[in-house]
């Protein structure tokens, strides 16, 4: 049609009367009615607009951000009018990511945009509060004890009747307003009493994710570490730590910034719902598609990110490992066996352990199984057999000579004098043999485990590998074992093999996975081919985003290893646009070195007390007592754990120095120091002797004794009880002593641990004091004895960094802390000051015996040769501190000087320097600069040292003591590394050697960081950050045993569990293990209405960041206004549930009373309760027991996977938040039914 032609019809309105009426507006208004009378235009004189102009006007705009536990790290503009915060909007002033790629502006999400609501909301905590019954007891007791608050506290908590009174009242209202003086006195007195009577390691602090506000994190952490109290970890506890990363890379986690998604040519979002959990980064994905990137979404539901994908791979929850293995099967067959691809073979020879030799050993049945790496020290007269650390240098065959060769770069070269200049990934003149096939002496059958049966029990497949004989040893390569494990047949090898891709009977064919995952085999074949071909075509620009969907499972390490195999064998790791991108709970405290040394007070004393939180609560909320695992559920039938429970394995791990444990001993660590002195012995020798003689025991060996549990827990920046507390109801019962909805029965006599005391009854109410510092009411504050009012993120100074972008930016106060609120820094200073005063009479100076596990990135990681476990308790070796048991160290603590130490940089930095990830730094020059920048303390214990009294001074100290923000240190660190590697590195930082990022810089605009040895990627020349690019491009080894990326793990426990190689392990079978109803079963046993048993997943919430914002009125208005559970219409129909019906979910761990959201985008058999919906918002009393409904974690419980507590062995050695048992929560099931009883509150 063309409207320029004369219209047959004349356009106009529908009649003369209407025309006239419209036309009359001409006379009523000052504006112009259009000639055709449609519309009215107006110019000038707009008095009627003034309302919106007034509304928009504001006095100032302040840069700040949100210290919430997310990886956004978004810079915001906070608008202020008349001294009131009005609203916020995103900053758009990030430095450009480059002319030919998108930028980072704007960063933010709806949750952050709703933050200012909290400032003046009715849930804001404006004053200090204490539970009335406790404060009354305290006031009475203080009078009775001559005004001594410490004795007063002691008289309450040591009196069972009084203690019971306030503990049973926890959570049930009755908080009363107090004064800062009083609450600080109570808190400080409790800390002094507990330190004095029970020892400092009976105190603990929990504050997560420092990157989102390191100064606030450091406030309590610095105080507690100075006192000697452990800080609890978070990354492992949240189940976000992918243990596969330390296992394979020797690195906690290192991931690309979101700007690097742009560089990928093939992107798989695998259990990572990017729009929801990486909201400000999602645009990089949507935009990269326009650059021709192919995008795949792997998700069990039609998740938000599926909308953007080219394909939706719908798989059964928790079966991701099977899918990954089948893709691996196709890639290994088509690109490693059917043909050799130089891009892949070259990469694997240099950067992975595929060519490393493994010794085959007969199992108990006489059948061969994979054993240990062959190392230089194994072969008498072999290459480097006499060299230093020869037992730590794995061997390969050299294709050029046909003989054994030992490559540099292993952990054996990393430490000691001989390795200087040799710790690198150069191959020299060695050509490592990837497979022995064709040059083999023989071909033998090995027995390889499979766990794909419904009950998760092990079975074995006989598969052949080519071997060569070395004396009486049979050896093969990791690649040969991998091909066998993946069922990739080669002519002439013995054993049972799949007949083809369409053989569903054995791992790991596409047809096999189809039965487990539901994904069509043909699709898997094609995706695998596309993935590999893309890697070839683009030199490794294929990326897999991984998230909580794949990671929160009990066997997540195995899921990850199967997926990481795809990114690694195809040469995608260490590339811009390639490799793994683990996006759940990961963080990057970019100035990590400055942060660590300041937050853990390493400027005053070392080592710090660091604790894995999963194991901590497994023990101290007595959840171990409900474990009914048997040994063969754990050890793949090898018998390595025969007669042992998980608790036995944990206590063994503790006594061998693998994993930390606090409280450590059944004696106060202060008394222990006195006892050693009294015995005239050094503490290490004394402790070893006492342990051996059985006079001293680890606390974990008798957790219910009444003296071996924590007594004070402080939470800040944390909502433990509304969010991460797996087994929430066990926390309420055993830790707090209040109401609980758990009904699980304890383990029977034959299921109980044998090396740990079993009390007839577990303790209830172990904690004497729960302190929470927050600005809003949460499921943690309502249970707390003392609640302190915090300044919000718009009311303080701090720093913010993330791995999703390369900038450091700042928090700044838009207003001063209102009412009686204080920043965390000021609050902990006040507590520290009072503590120091009270310590004069009660503590003075004491010596403290610290048991520290064997650390990663230190020579302690070479404690366990070949990963062969020897237990001194069993008489297999002597207890030797730092070798076969924990390192025993002594710290002197002047408890009267805690405040001065907290607010001054201590002398250790100049005396012994700084150390991060094995790189040493001399920081005399930096401390001197800080003296000028921060000012100098006069008098006292910190005389002449730089001050860190204010939050800004602390921020500046962290920035100046880190390579990413101080080019001088970055360069120095690389120079240190160059000596060890013998390769060129320092040029990576030298372009910024003179650059020093200060806090003031971060107030102006987000500031890009400097390439530093603190991290593994290079950002030099403005590159986007991708992990391991320094390893790949500059041949710096990974921090593993082999120095390469390791597919194979040969520790005894891994071998015993059948997990030496990637293997598919299905979700735990809760029917088999704990008697829960099988998924899909209908029952009328749970109440008035029919229930159905479903898989219970707790993914991240669209309307909150964990528990933050889920109570925010804007978010509640945009969602369903309270706790909700998503379910399939198919399941809903089975039990008569309609959308928005009240439902009740019940399993052995607890009860949830929420509403249903019914949708066809959910798969049958699975419900989602988006996590961390507090029990505070519109949660009724449950139908089952008439008590307040629970949170998402009321239906979960802690389950420890044994190989996560392996330690003392190369990359499997401990470090804080680096490795450890995860608080997994994905394998659970529950019943769900419609509520029939009236809804009551």
């Amino acid at each position: 049609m063309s409207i320029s032609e004369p219209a047959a019809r004349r356009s106009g309105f529908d009649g003369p009367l209407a025309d006239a009426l419209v036309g009359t507006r001409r006379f009523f208004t000052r504006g112009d009615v259009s000639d055709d009378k449609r519309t009215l235009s107006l110019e000038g004189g707009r008095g009627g607009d003034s309302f919106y102009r007034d509304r928009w006007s504001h006095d100032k705009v302040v840069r700040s951000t949100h210290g919430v536990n997310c990886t956004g790290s978004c810079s915001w503009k906070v608008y202020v009018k008349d001294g009131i915060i009005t609203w916020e909007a995103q900053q758009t002033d990030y430095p450009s990511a480059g002319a030919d790629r998108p930028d980072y502006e704007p960063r933010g999400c709806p949750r952050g945009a709703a933050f200012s609501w909290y400032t003046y909301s009715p849930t804001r905590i404006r004053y200090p509060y204490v539970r009335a019954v406790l404060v009354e007891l305290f006031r009475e007791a203080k009078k009775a004890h001559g005004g001594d608050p410490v004795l007063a506290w002691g008289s309450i908590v040591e009196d069972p009747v009084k203690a019971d009174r306030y503990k049973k009242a926890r959570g049930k209202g009755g908080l009363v307003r107090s004064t800062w003086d009083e609450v600080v006195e109570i808190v400080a007195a409790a800390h002094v009493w507990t330190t004095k009577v029970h020892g400092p390691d009976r105190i603990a602090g929990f504050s997560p994710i420092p990157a989102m506000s390191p100064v606030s994190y450091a406030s309590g952490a610095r105080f507690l570490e100075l006192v000697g109290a452990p800080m609890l970890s978070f990354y492992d506890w949240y189940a976000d730590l992918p243990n596969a990363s330390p296992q394979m890379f020797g690195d906690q986690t290192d991931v690309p910034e979101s700007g690097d998604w742009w560089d990928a040519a093939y992107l798989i979002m695998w259990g990572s719902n990017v729009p929801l959990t990486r909201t400000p980064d999602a645009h990089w994905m949507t935009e990269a598609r326009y650059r021709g990137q192919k995008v795949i979404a792997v998700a069990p539901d039609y998740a938000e990110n599926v909308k953007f994908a080219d394909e939706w791979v719908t798989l059964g929850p928790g079966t991701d490992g099977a899918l990954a293995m089948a893709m691996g099967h196709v890639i290994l067959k088509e690109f490693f066996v059917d043909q050799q691809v130089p891009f892949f073979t070259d990469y694997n020879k240099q950067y992975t352990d595929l060519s490393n030799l493994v010794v085959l050993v007969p199992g108990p049945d006489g059948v061969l199984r994979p054993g240990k790496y062959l190392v230089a020290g194994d072969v008498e007269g072999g290459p480097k057999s006499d060299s230093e650390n020869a037992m730590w240098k794995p061997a390969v065959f050299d294709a050029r000579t046909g003989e054994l060769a030992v490559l540099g770069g292993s952990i054996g070269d990393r430490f000691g004098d001989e390795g200087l200049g040799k710790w690198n990934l150069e191959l020299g003149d060695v050509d490592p043999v990837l497979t022995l096939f064709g040059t083999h002496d023989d071909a033998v059958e090995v027995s390889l485990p499979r766990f794909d049966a419904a009950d998760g029990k092990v079975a074995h497949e006989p598969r052949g590998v080519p071997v060569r004989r070395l004396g009486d040893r049979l050896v093969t390569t990791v690649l040969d074992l991998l091909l066998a494990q993946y069922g990739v047949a080669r002519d002439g090898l013995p054993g049972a093999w799949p007949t083809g891709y369409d053989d569903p009977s054995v791992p790991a064919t596409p047809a096999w996975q189809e039965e487990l995952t539901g994904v069509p085999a043909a699709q898997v074949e094609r995706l695998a081919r596309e993935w590999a071909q893309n890697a070839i075509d683009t030199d490794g620009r294929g990326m897999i985003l991984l998230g909580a969907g794949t990671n929160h499972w009990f066997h997540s390490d195995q899921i990850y290893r199967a997926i990481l195999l795809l990114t690694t064998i195809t040469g995608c790791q260490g590339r811009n646009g390639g490799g793994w991108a683990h996006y759940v709970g990961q963080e990057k405290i970019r100035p990590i070195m400055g942060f660590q040394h300041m937050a853990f007070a390493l400027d005053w004393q070392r080592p710090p007390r660091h604790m894995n939180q999963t194991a901590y609560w497994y023990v101290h909320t007595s959840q171990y007592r409900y474990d009914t695992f048997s040994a063969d559920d754990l050890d793949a039938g090898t018998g390595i754990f025969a007669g042992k429970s998980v608790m036995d394995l944990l206590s063994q791990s503790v006594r061998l120095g693998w994993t930390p444990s606090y409280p450590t001993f059944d004696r106060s660590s202060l008394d222990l120091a006195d006892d050693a002195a009294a015995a005239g012995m050094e503490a290490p020798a004394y402790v070893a002797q006492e342990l051996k003689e059985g006079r001293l025991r680890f606390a974990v060996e008798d957790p219910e004794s009444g003296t071996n549990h924590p007594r004070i827990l402080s939470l800040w920046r944390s909502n433990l009880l509304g969010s991460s507390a797996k087994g929430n109801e066990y926390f309420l019962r055993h830790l707090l002593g209040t109401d609980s909805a758990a009904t699980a029965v304890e383990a029977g006599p034959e299921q109980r641990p044998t090396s740990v005391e079993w009390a007839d009854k577990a303790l209830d109410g172990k904690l004497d004091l729960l302190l929470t510092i927050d600005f809003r009411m949460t499921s943690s504050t309502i249970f707390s004895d003392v609640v302190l009012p915090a300044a919000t993120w718009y009311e303080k100074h701090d720093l913010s960094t993330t791995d999703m972008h390369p900038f450091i930016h700042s928090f700044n106060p838009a207003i001063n802390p209102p009412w009686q609120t204080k920043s965390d820094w000021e609050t902990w200073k006040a507590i520290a000051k009072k503590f120091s005063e009270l310590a004069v009479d009660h503590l003075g100076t004491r010596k403290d015996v610290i048991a520290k596990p064997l650390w990663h990135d230190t020579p302690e990681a070479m404690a366990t040769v070949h990963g062969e476990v020897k237990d001194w308790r069993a008489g297999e070796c002597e207890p030797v501190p730092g070798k076969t048991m924990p390192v025993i160290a002594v710290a002197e603590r002047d408890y009267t000087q805690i405040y001065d130490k907290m607010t001054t940089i201590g002398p250790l930095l100049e005396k012994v320097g700084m150390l991060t990830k094995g790189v040493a730094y001399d920081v005399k020059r930096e401390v001197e600069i800080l003296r000028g920048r921060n000012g100098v303390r006069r008098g006292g214990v910190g005389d002449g040292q730089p001050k860190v009294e204010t939050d800004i001074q602390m921020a500046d100290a962290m920035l100046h003591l880190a390579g990413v923000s101080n080019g001088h240190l970055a360069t120095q660190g690389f120079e240190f590394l160059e000596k060890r590697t013998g390769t060129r590195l320092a040029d990576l930082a030298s372009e910024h050697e003179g650059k020093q990022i200060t806090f003031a810089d971060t107030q102006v605009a987000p500031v890009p960081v400097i390439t530093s040895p603190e991290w593994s990627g290079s950002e030099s020349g403005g590159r986007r950050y991708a992990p391991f690019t320094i390893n790949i491009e500059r041949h710096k080894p990974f921090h593993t045993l082999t120095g390469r990326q390791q597919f194979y793990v040969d520790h005894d426990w891994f071998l015993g569990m059948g997990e030496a190689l990637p293997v598919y392990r299905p979700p735990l079978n809760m029917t088999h293990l704990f008697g829960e109803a099988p998924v899909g079963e209908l029952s009328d046993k749970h109440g008035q209405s029919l229930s159905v048993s479903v898989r219970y997943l707790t993914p991240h919430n669209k309307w909150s960041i964990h528990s933050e914002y889920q109570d925010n009125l804007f978010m509640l208005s945009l969602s369903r206004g309270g706790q909700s559970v998503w379910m399939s219409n198919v399941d809903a129909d089975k039990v008569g549930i309609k959308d928005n019906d009240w439902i009740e979910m019940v399993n052995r761990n607890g009860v949830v009373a929420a509403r249903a959201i019914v949708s066809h985008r959910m798969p049958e058999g699975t419900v989602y309760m988006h996590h961390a919906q507090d029990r505070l918002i519109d949660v009724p009393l449950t139908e089952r027991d008439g008590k307040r409904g629970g949170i998402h974690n009321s239906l979960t419980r802690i389950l420890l996977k044994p190989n996560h507590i392996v330690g003392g062995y190369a990359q499997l050695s401990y470090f804080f938040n680096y490795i450890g048992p995860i608080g997994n929560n994905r394998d659970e099931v529950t019943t769900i039914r419609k509520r029939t009883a009236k809804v009551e509150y």
Partner: protein
Amino acid sequence: MKVMAQMAMVMNLDKCIGCHTCSVTCKQAWTNRSGMEYVWFNNVETRPGLGYPRGYQDQEKWKGGWALNGRGRLTLRAGGRLNKLLNIFSNPKMPALSDYYEPWTYDYETLLSAPAQKNFPVARPHSLISGKPINIEWSANWDDDLGGSMEHATKDLMLKGIEDKVKFEFDQTFMFYLPRICEHCLNPSCAASCPSGAIYKREEDGIVLVDQDKCRGWRMCVTGCPYKKIYFNHKTGKAEKCTFCYPRIEVGIPTVCAETCVGRLRYIGLMLYDADAVLEAASVEDDHDLYEAQRSVFLDPFDPAVMREAERAGIPGDWVDAAQRSPVYALINTYKVALPLHPEYRTMPMVWYIPPLSPVVDVIKDTGHDAEDQDNLFAAIDTLRIPIEYLANLFTAGDPAPVDAVLRRLAAMRSYMRDINLGRDPQERIPAAVGMTEEEMYDMFRLLAIAKYEDRY
């Protein structure tokens, strides 16, 4: 020719992640005050779904927008101005509060003030209208992400004509998001509905505003607007609506919703149009012609004749520059990838949308076919999960051809760029197949993908 300038927006739905940041920042800035609790000048709807207020697209029911009468003349669907005046005191054709939602809050203070008691305290919801406890049953975003789909999404009027095709079964699921603000129409039916003459288009930029001094609260505009983007402030008794953030636009910064859009999918720009041609364009007979009719109203800012006329009309030179640089113009007229929302309402809306791509359906993946392969490229458009007909019902009055053309251009761009990304020779035949040159395609890629701040606004 009467040259006028119009501030306009394009939203690229292919990039919308449904996060609702725009809604929250807009609400915080403009409507978090009493009388406006239920009001979201900017909202985001999950499609398929009912939208906000629920079922607003049902013009049989709400009578919004314009219709052509038997004589081919435009008439307000609600019955014209005469009818309006006759019904001025009782206007039944308006969504009730329950169609928006009854706003609520919680007794949060209980959490701190609860006395010692038997159970853990809880905050219960209370109506912000009545103050009484409330059972929450609807909101401005109740069916987000297909929540309650079997009861709500199934009633989406945009499924018209494809009821048999869309099954609401798990493996056929599709969804996308539709952010909405006031359309700032060239032919606003709200303005034409107002008996008080309180609604006007600003002369210089076409932003549609309600004069707060003049508004008498008749609420005819609420009925007249087919997008239901005029709201009644129950406290002041006046109509309020999206202002296109004119206090910001006037000083050269984008609207709140656009600048805070983390999907980076909103473009703002100036359009020159011929005001004399609007009525005729809005009156074309066939609904399917309305898209092209509206495009024909827009003037080419590079055309010397247009520039001359603009100068004569008093439009400043820098505004003509702005119209030339306008990303909105490029997306609507140069690359032809943006489409109007419900042109059949005949209001000549000025917030346009790039329709979304979506994953291919299982039929492709089961066969082991690669939908991204350029040889399969256009076949794949037909296998996308979002039915083209559904998009056509939103953007082209049901005509699938323009939607198909846009999706082909987007798909072709991806395919063309993949060769460049992989270091292969780019293929001229790909842009040619969708009527574009290589340069145009590359420029479109930069505008859609790289989308720098200064290029979006």
